[in-house]
């Protein structure tokens, strides 16, 4: 019997995926400073209706991924164009996350190693994971999510004496515009990115539960993001704005009786593992989307070459970390909104108007 993804596996996968995208908190700190936690709550609230759109689409087309849904709803030509846009979006996210891994490893662990070598090794492991099958990978997410949650709570407890609750003051002191930008950044660059899991819907045991499970996963991840953000603000205060990696800087302060010290290595390990998970999911979405787009039955033959393209893209996408930060803070959320909100909403509206799926497509002979 073919293995399928259970709802619990999807929930943990969604949570792991979002927790890995926590570097957006850096963008958030720059807009909302000590009120960043409010941005996360607002982002969660505005992502809920978007998640409902995803849920409604998955309920309507339980055996189809987003590429197949687009073609079913918009017809062959427009459907293919929209599918190509989705595939490009997945690829661009994969490239950006891969770049993040390269920057992180080069800055923190291997400053003298060429980034190309770091990326080749990293993408090689991701390609191996994609080749072995995405269902096994979602199985790993349970362990990843559990380890991340335990470590975050553990580090929170170790940092307890460093917490300064006056760092949250003055609260609600930013301009209203900044709260909206912050909420949009959280929703578009983190919470709603789980849209990529739409490519896994046909592999689910109960595809009709996609929306509910995704909402549960996003809720779990939001709680984790809130804890991390609140901890960073309480420990670092205004330094969160100038620090390049606030969560990493916080961990350097842990020193309990000379026993629990230099815990940043734990952060490094779990952060790279989570990014490996994200890139692998996006990698799978890209190759399976591309092969579906060109009506190729198996995506296996495209795995290696897309890995090479991802490495090339990641090496050339930005010339410096500053350019990456600029992209994240000025354009990334707007770019993502097209794919994460407008296109899915248009698809749902078009499907409702055209009364899709019809009976014949719902129960093929």
């Amino acid at each position: 019997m073919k293995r399928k993804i259970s709802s619990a596996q999807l929930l943990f996968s969604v949570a792991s995926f979002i927790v890995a995208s926590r570097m957006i908190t850096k963008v958030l700190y720059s807009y909302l400073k000590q009120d960043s936690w409010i941005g996360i709550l607002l982002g969660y609230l505005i992502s809920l209706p978007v998640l409902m759109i995803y849920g409604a689409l998955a309920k309507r087309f339980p055996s189809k991924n987003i590429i197949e849904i687009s073609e079913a709803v918009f017809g062959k030509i427009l459907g293919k164009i929209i599918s190509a846009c989705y595939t490009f979006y997945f690829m661009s996210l994969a490239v950006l996350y891969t770049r993040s891994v390269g920057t992180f490893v080069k800055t923190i662990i291997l400053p003298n190693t060429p980034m190309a070598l770091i990326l080749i090794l990293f993408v090689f492991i991701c390609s191996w994971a994609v080749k072995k099958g995405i269902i096994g990978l979602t199985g790993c997410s349970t362990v990843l999510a559990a380890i991340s949650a335990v470590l975050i709570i553990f580090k929170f407890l170790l940092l307890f004496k460093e917490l300064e609750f006056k760092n949250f003051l003055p609260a609600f002191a930013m301009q209203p515009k900044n709260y909206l930008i912050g909420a949009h950044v959280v929703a578009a660059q983190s919470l709603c990115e789980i849209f990529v899991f739409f490519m896994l819907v046909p592999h689910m045991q109960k595809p009709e539960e996609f929306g509910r499970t995704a909402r549960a996963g996003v809720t779990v991840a939001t709680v984790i993001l809130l804890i991390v953000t609140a901890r960073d603000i309480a420990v670092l205060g205004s330094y969160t704005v100038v620090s390049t990696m606030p969560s990493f800087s916080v961990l350097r302060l842990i020193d309990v009786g000379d026993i629990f010290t230099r815990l940043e290595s734990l952060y490094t390990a779990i952060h790279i593992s989570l990014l490996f998970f994200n890139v692998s999911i996006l990698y799978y979405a890209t190759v399976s989307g591309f092969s579906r787009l060109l009506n190729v039955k198996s995506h296996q033959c495209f795995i290696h070459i897309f890995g090479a393209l991802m490495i090339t893209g990641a090496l050339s996408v930005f010339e410096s970390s500053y350019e990456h930060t600029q992209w994240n803070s000025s354009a990334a959320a707007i770019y993502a909104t097209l794919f994460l909100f407008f296109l899915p909403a248009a698809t749902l509206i078009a499907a409702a108007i055209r009364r899709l799926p019809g009976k014949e497509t719902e129960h093929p002979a």
Partner: protein
Amino acid sequence: MIVLVVMLFGLLALSDFPPLLKSGKRYEIIVLSGLYALGLALVTLQVFDVSFPGPIKGLQILIVDVLKIGYPES
């Protein structure tokens, strides 16, 4: 460096093409060959330090400078 790149691509091609050639999947071979040509061209440009415009930079210019819908720097 370029020899290394060609060798790497050769190795990848050796694992990708034989199964397709064996099963006579012409369409897949054409698509894959196109992707390999694209990949090799991009990597060669990179090896020779030729900068080429990436789509992300283009999108950033479109969003921030042309459409003016980007977020202001905080």
